[in-house]
């Protein structure tokens, strides 16, 4: 994924209007691009071409349905560890070796390693976290979500 800023002229006003509008939703219909394009004043072909271009230059990361992860039947848990600096690289290797570790970030805190476990079942979460504790000799704190709040996050393009 592109992690640098695009030049200011990479997107024109129409591209920005598309980015802003289609973050909120896209029709489920036989001709969804024609429908969405009509609302934005662009043709079906132009809308498809502009989205394709924005994907190619890395202005968008995904286009399609966003599924509720829980609905897909898995169990997820945010976990954190306080890893001594001298052991950090070795611990990364041990933790990342587990296929259930979906993301792992180093963060600025005594709890300096934060990762998400994604398993088929809740039992799997406990098993993998326990395995990581046994392998590393470090505590794995577990922060399952108790409640998720609706987020209104939108990027203003």
């Amino acid at each position, binding site marked *: 994924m592109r992690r640098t800023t695009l030049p200011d002229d990479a997107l024109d006003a129409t591209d920005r209007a598309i980015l802003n509008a289609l973050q909120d939703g896209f029709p489920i219909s036989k*001709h*969804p691009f024609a429908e969405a394009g009509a609302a934005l004043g662009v043709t079906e072909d132009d809308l498809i071409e502009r*989205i394709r271009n924005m994907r190619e230059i890395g202005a968008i990361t*995904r286009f399609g*349905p966003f599924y509720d992860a829980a609905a*897909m039947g898995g169990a997820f848990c945010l976990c954190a560890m306080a890893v001594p600096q001298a052991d950090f690289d070795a611990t990364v290797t041990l933790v990342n070796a587990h296929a259930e570790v979906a993301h792992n*970030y180093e963060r600025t805190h005594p709890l300096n390693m934060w990762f998400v476990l*994604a398993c088929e079942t809740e039992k799997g979460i406990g098993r993998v976290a326990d395995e990581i504790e046994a392998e590393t000799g470090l505590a794995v704190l577990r922060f399952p979500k108790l409640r*998720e*709040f609706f987020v209104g996050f939108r990027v203003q393009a």
Partner: protein
Amino acid sequence: MTIDATERRIIAATQSGLSLTASPYAIVAGQLGLTEDEVIARMADMQARGIIRRIALAPNHYALGMLANGMSVWDVDDTKAETLGDKVGALPFVSHSYLRPRAPGWPYCLFAMIHGNTRAEVEEKRKLIAEILGDACRSNDILYSTRILKKTGMRISGGS
């Protein structure tokens, strides 16, 4: 929330995205041996049930200049945490917001991921959250990511 076998196959066929063609749901239907009408009806139903949160494009916030993000964490009075969490989640610069259990040495229960163009901007936004939480918040912190150690997508299989 449960899904049936057909829904599972539709999820597997669309989780990495829709085709950029005039009738993308017809493409999904063709791959799965369903009719376009069936795929449209099933996806509309999954959206109504909240299994599909929305069909949308995801802007790359780094490409658009939002280079800074921090995981802000808050020790909020349990009796007010749900109401305040709703308010924090609704802020346009918060991309994820959850209540999570506390742990020994970790007093924080409300997590909110804050995005901005610079770290200074993220800190300004953190102050806005502090104002919203007011006296209900006893302490807070923010954790910036310094390195991505692993990032893989979460995927389900289509089943047999």
